[in-house]
């Protein structure tokens, strides 16, 4: 059995995760750090990502690196994003920061789908967004967008 090199990733809240180098390299940001950091860097700090999110990101990378051609990759991805909004947004943020295109596309697409076909009120409810327009601004918007309702 060949011994593969492992890397330790440390999240913003100090949690550490030991992963195969190949899995860590799935993040282009980590790949860049390793390539420019010198041979001694076996622990890499990921200060923008919390432990909970980092563990999920690693789960994604593991699956995509170890079994990229497996038949259940699609269903893995579909189930992977069946999480609550906060986790989904953290995944999008982390995958952007860590430069993991596949995960960024997956999480972004899932969030985008949550916008489709919803009215403005429904969007606010879904995402817990407060309406911070003044009544004057709202009136202006209503006029600007009236075309959208009647086409």
């Amino acid at each position: 059995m060949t011994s593969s090199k492992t890397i330790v990733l440390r999240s913003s809240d100090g949690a550490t995760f030991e992963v195969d180098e190949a899995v860590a390299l799935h993040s282009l940001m980590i790949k860049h750090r390793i390539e420019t950091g010198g041979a001694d860097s076996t622990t890499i700090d990921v200060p923008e990502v919390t432990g909970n999110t980092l563990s999920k990101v690693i789960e994604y990378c593991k699956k995509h690196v170890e079994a990229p051609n497996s038949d259940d990759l699609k269903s893995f991805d579909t189930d992977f994003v069946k999480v609550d909004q906060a986790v989904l947004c953290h995944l999008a943020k982390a995958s952007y920061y860590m430069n993991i295109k596949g995960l960024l596309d997956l999480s972004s697409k899932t969030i985008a789908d949550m916008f489709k076909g919803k009215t403005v009120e429904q969007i606010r409810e879904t995402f817990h967004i407060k309406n911070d327009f003044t009544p004057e601004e709202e009136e202006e918007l209503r006029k600007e967008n009236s075309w959208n309702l009647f086409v």
Partner: protein
Amino acid sequence: MIPTSIVVSDALEPDFPVIYVNKVFESVTGYRADEVLGRNCRFLQYRDPRAQRRHPLVDPDCVSEIRRCLDEGIHFQGELLNFSKDGTPIVNRLRLAPIHGDDGIITHIIGIQLFTHAKIDLNTVSYPVFNPKTTSFTQETCPILQLSDEVMAQNIFSRLTPRDVASIGSVCTRIRQLTKSEHLRKMVCQNAWGTEVTGALEHMTNKLGWGRLARELTTLEAVCWKKLRVGGAVEPSRCNFSACAAGNRLVLFGGEGVNMQPMDDTFVLNLDAVNPEWRQVSVKSAPPGRWGHTLSCLNGSWLVVFGGCGKQGLLNDVFVLDLDAKQPTWIEVYGGSPPPPRSWHSSCTIEGSKLVVSGGCTAAGVLLNDTFLLDLTMEKPVWREIPTSRVPPSRLGHSLSVYGRTKILMFGGLANSGHLRLRSNEAYTIDLVEEKPEWRVLEYNGVGTQNAVVPPPRLDHVAMSMPCGRVIIFGGSIAGLHSPSQVFLLDPSEEKASWRILNVPGEPPKFAWGHSTCVVGGTRVLVLGGHTGEEWVLNELHELCLASRQA
């Protein structure tokens, strides 16, 4: 003397974007000009450059008062808590004055600030500081707004349709700000309509902007008929030619001359020229002359001719031409076993390089109902018949319109109906991306009910696809007394498609039939020729404009 900080904002643009800040502003606030131009000044109320809302110690009543003065176009004077870029609190003694243009409209707001050190301790303050009638504290608990602008705009919003992006701007101020970006709107159009279509629309957006263009193509609020007079001449005169647009150039090939002789010359009309005029294209060798053929545009400046009636009978040959070559030459493409020779068929181009041909009439006078495809990107292109289990009734003079990148809408024509040949107003669709593409009848919504609108049956009409996927139909040889210039609109992607009548101001062409249409730049439908019973007119073009040419 305390140095004065000055900011000028544009009052004609939404949300008063900053257009100028002086050096004092830069040095006191720590924000460089290039970091703040184009933004509203309210970022000074945020303690952190990346914050989404103002700091709770900023007096919301003062902010409302600023708003009121701006709305009423009057002076404001007051004091407001601001923060420099590194989070240091500073007091801004602010004066705002409106600047009027020649016609009395307020064009700019000038802001004069005297900044002084704020004697407050941010750590002893607890939330909420003011009356809870002020808003936006709960934005902090909203996960999606914690995402950066790039992730929100480039990765999430760019996947939405142009209409969705227009409507989500009403959700909250931050999203509104993000959706106003021209860059985002362009990405959205590209993702929704494809790069081919948006490339063709590029020059229109210099004047209109992508947001407005997408809106006009959806509402068709700016649609109108226009007349265009051009110079030069297509001589000898002819009918039954074929024409198409390559970018902003119209190309015409062949046709039937006065003595029914098939023509083989090529003409081009450059609409970008100051005085557009028809010019003959000098080619090394021409395809055999013909009429009742099809001319379609491939990627960029390439053109392809298929079929038609030549001197010795019906043809099924293929010729291509690169209009931009130093010496444009028609080159024959041999595609293996070609479709049966025909005339009055219809053709279209899929994904810029796949020629699709269907229907038409054979030498024996038999109508066809086949569908053939020739992929011209291949080294050795080969004709391929698309076998479908259900075929639309055979026809000639019908139209094929491409929508949704790989789908085709077939409409109208003179079709077999039992022993007879009747004008048709039926529509069929096919999606070539499928493994086994099938022609399907497009069912119309509300047929038989009082308010249902269906175009009268016709052949040799104009059909044109718009970027959003809807199809416009008008003209043609129509039975009865219906006006051929009535414009109809259809969305073929609906399960039960509804026809709509489009009321177009301006003077429509005096239609009958036999004209040719070309689409230029994605938003202009040019109608040339058209046998009005008198003569074939090619110096007067009629244009159906779908979007404004300038803002």
